[in-house]
């Protein structure tokens, strides 16, 4: 299952650590602002895309789920 995760902060990393143990789950994009630290966390976890825009991440092909360990607005 391809998923994206928004929020590369302290708790985002805890989720990425947990997700590594779950079979068949692939984090395809990490969303965060600013871009540079988001890229660093993505590189650390082998996540192919780092981006600042949530909609852009959701539009990636085959994404089935999003995890949002951050504050967000509906």
């Amino acid at each position, binding site marked *: 299952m391809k998923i994206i995760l928004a929020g590369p902060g302290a708790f985002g990393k805890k989720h990425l650590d947990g997700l590594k143990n*779950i079979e068949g789950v692939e984090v395809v994009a990490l969303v965060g602002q600013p871009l540079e630290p988001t890229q660093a966390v993505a590189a650390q976890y082998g996540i192919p895309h780092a981006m600042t825009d949530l909609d852009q991440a959701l539009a990636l092909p085959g994404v089935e789920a999003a995890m949002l360990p951050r504050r967000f607005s509906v």
Partner: protein
Amino acid sequence: MADNWSDAQAVMDLQQETGLVCMVGHTRRFNPSHQWVYKKIQAGELKIQQLDAQTYFFRRKNINAAGEPRTWTDHLLWHHAAHTIDLFQFQTGEEVVRANAVQGPMHPELGIAMDMSIQLLSESGSVCTLSLSFNNDGPLGTFFRYICDNGTYIARYDDLVTAKDEAIDVSQVDVSMNGIELQDREFIASIREGREPRASVAKVLPTYRVMHQLEQQLNTQPTLS
């Protein structure tokens, strides 16, 4: 999930419109420690008389759990109290029928209350006493004392001890000892199986209604001199 009642309702409405799995990060429903207590309650071996919870941080500047700058401001009621109110309703399996709150003065720069005290009563008489502070100079985190008819237990995140500080083996409670991983497993499994997750938006919504009531009560609190 939200920092006000109308946004919480908006998430619920969107879930109903789309029919998608929507799960809220109330990790305490998944920590092995709290699950151990939950299973005892479900088996009829334990009833909570009082849940005493302390949420303590030293957060006089806007930084995250790793000490890095944050782009948002944390909140004692809509974030930290949310976890405990949700846990209390989850563990008792009951709605909160009475709720009280008082708070200390607003921080001049952060614009939030730094100290808060909350009391809850469940339908059958379980009590919850929650103390929250961003002024506590350690230890940091949330600690729970389950005072029950048949034992007293203290939960610290994934770990559980008796009142005499004897460790309880929670390794067989679930497939992992990591509450965040267990929560993530439930999210993924509920999508794969097309079912409602343990912390669905519908299941946690009563927590946000209680917080809304508490917020209204706090708004009537006299201005502090």
